[in-house]
């Protein structure tokens, strides 16, 4: 790989952010790269913002993506996708956003309004080169679990074909990290389909 690829996974504590990071890193190892993953957990797992930095290259990079240098934002939550874009997006950024919001304490209490999806998409489009969004709700409800949204989004990432890593290695990585469970594999396949149909804005 001539140039490295920086993937930022944005979400909320409990969404499987770390699993996504580990999966992509495992996939990168499969393809012979030397990935570096920067992750923050601890207090933030209790409903706070969680960002995982995945850097795929042949050298030992630092754990944090510099401002403006993110290539792909994998957004597990709409507002967190925008937050990540504001902090890290640049001219090369492609954002892939899940349309399932996680409300905040203030938005639940009605003290503040969670932004509308079209507002978020609009703002994202002003910051990223391309924006794709997918809605995993139906799949997750059919599967009866929201815990596999990360597998769905990894599938969608393969579907939009921007990651340097192949679908096969990401799938292998996923199985290595979460095991060969049926809801995960199915969510991945459904995400793949959704990603393939997604049109950038």
């Amino acid at each position, binding site marked *: 790989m001539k140039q490295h690829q920086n993937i930022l996974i944005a979400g909320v504590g409990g969404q499987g952010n770390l699993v996504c990071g*580990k999966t992509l890193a495992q996939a990168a190892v499969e393809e012979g790269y030397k990935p570096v993953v920067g992750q923050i957990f601890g207090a933030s797992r209790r409903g706070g913002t969680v960002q995982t930095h995945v850097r795929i290259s042949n050298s030992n990079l630092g754990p944090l993506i510099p401002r403006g240098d993110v290539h792909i934002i994998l957004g597990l939550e709409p507002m967190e996708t925008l937050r990540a874009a504001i902090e890290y997006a640049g001219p090369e950024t492609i954002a892939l956003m899940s349309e399932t919001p996680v409300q905040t304490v203030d938005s639940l209490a009605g003290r503040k309004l969670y932004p509308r999806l079209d507002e978020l998409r609009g703002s994202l489009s002003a910051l990223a080169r391309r924006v794709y969004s997918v809605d995993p709700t139906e799949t997750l409800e059919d599967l009866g679990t929201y815990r596999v949204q990360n597998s769905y989004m990894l599938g969608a990432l393969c579907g939009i074909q921007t990651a340097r890593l192949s679908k096969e290695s990401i799938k292998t990585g996923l199985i290595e990290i979460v095991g060969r469970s049926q809801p995960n594999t199915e969510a991945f396949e459904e995400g793949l389909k959704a990603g393939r149909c997604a049109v950038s804005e």
Partner: protein
Amino acid sequence: MIEGDQVLMSGNEAIARGAIEAGIRFCASYPGTPSTEITEYIMKTSDRRDIHAEWSTNEKVALEASTAASWAGLPALCPMKSLGLNVAADFLLNVNLSGTGDGGLVIVVCDDPRGHSSSNEQDSRFYSKAAHLPLLEPSSCQQAKDIMPYAFEISKRYEIPVIVRSTTRLSHTRAIVELGEVPDIEIESAHDIPSNLYNVPRPDFKHKQLLAKLDDIKEDFEKSRFNKLDSSDKRVRILASGITNRYSEEAMRKLDLEDIEILSITTTFPLPGKSVLKALDSATHVLFAEEGQPFTEENVAVLFAKRKNRTVPELHGKIDGVIERYGELNVDKVAHALSRITGCEFRPVPPEFEERAQKSRELLLDRPPTFCPGCGHRAVYWAIKKAKQRFDKPVVVTGDIGCYSMGIFYDSSLDTMQAMGSSIGTASGLGQLSRFGFDQKVIAVAGDSTFFHACLPGLVNARNKNADLTFIVIDNNTTAMTGFQPSPSSHIQRGETFSVDIENIARAALPDYIDIGIASDIPATTDLIHENLTRDGLKIIIVKAVCRLAEREDSKAERPKVYIDADSCIGENCKLCMTQFGCLAIEWNEEEDHSEIENHLCVRCGDCIVVCPHDAIRRG
């Protein structure tokens, strides 16, 4: 995993693997982010590898136990978070003089710049200076592993503890690590401990001996293969330590600067002055890239100050402010510093992007950490709130460290939150101020693991001085915040450990009143708290709670569903379950004007049922 394998590992796992490759026999620790995974990794294979690994009651006990193992000839590891070293410092600043025998003792301290999971952002390196102990700062996951056998080697040779400092960004970064060999050590038997393991009657002599050891260690460090202090003719040098090495390399590439040399110092104390000065020779500018305070920067400034009649380069970093003195470093901050020093322009994003980003920021809502759905702490804080409303005098609530610290963000349920054990300590002070006219009743809140860690001296003080306070211990049977390590009172203990009962210990303090409550019975807990507020003296309430994250996944399904009866919910005019109780599993249905349970988030605890004044929340 065998020698030569290339494995993805976090910095913490690499540190643990390095300790295993160094042949440790003993590991004692108290969990604390970002250090916890070191001990967890060791525990995974400790039985097979015949290593004693324990979660100790607190960091001081962990350090004392590890030291004892080293005295008896067994290599020992003691990992902790930054603030843990404050707890252990009293022992550390004694055992540095007494010595650690020939086993070897390495303390790993993980600092948390920016305080991602901490209540401060202390630079623990100053302890190595205060205690005159050697300090190593690895700069990558690979080096984090490789440096551990070296750390043990120094500890054994000089019979003193060696401190290895990591930071969050190293501890929690995963990268490829090439494994080394795990020595096939036969079970070593412990030997007698050395004589003279005390500093009196002449601590000054012991101090003199320690300083002499430090001089020898400095000579060792002059030759250390872990430093990269090559001579150079570049005008600007960066002296980096720890993870900032990576930031410096990338910042230099980003700015496309050539007249810069990055030097790397891993043995930061005692500073190998000769090699550092040689490496900085003929530089016109030196930038110090280090996490925390200007530690190395100050030490190098002293070196230059002692050098007579020579030109001194301009020193840049946290003293002259080209890098701000608080927060965490990153590539951008180092690049900004370089741009200020060299005058070359640095713009991470175009100005028009900056404007758009600024505008988008208005859409964002904060996400303060909060209690999980069904968390017992929320139920207890709700009961405290109701008891306070019923009580006719003001009440102050002192807090402690654990998941319940998030009471800060829960309708300001806590008025204070500092260190482990400070709830009961500060309460024992406030509870003695009535003669000065302080007429507020005091509640102290702590959890089970914290109760043992640091609350016991405060509790004894409160009894001994007859402080007027109510001490609420929320016992959820685990150290939840750091990932469910067993606390001393947990029902399920690991291996040979034995459960220690909180109630028995609390009763032994002879409180005026002691009660046991159940968090999920909110009305009864409210009554208990209110009743104790009306009483004088030392009152203890132990509240049994459940950590829903630690709970078995299928326990949820065994309970009947919780739902909201749309007809009984009075809608917009109330919304109390959402605006005040604030469980993330209760959502608002705008179209139908009533609240709704999010089934995929709800754990069916039913805590919210009593919260609704209209009996609209039900089970079934």
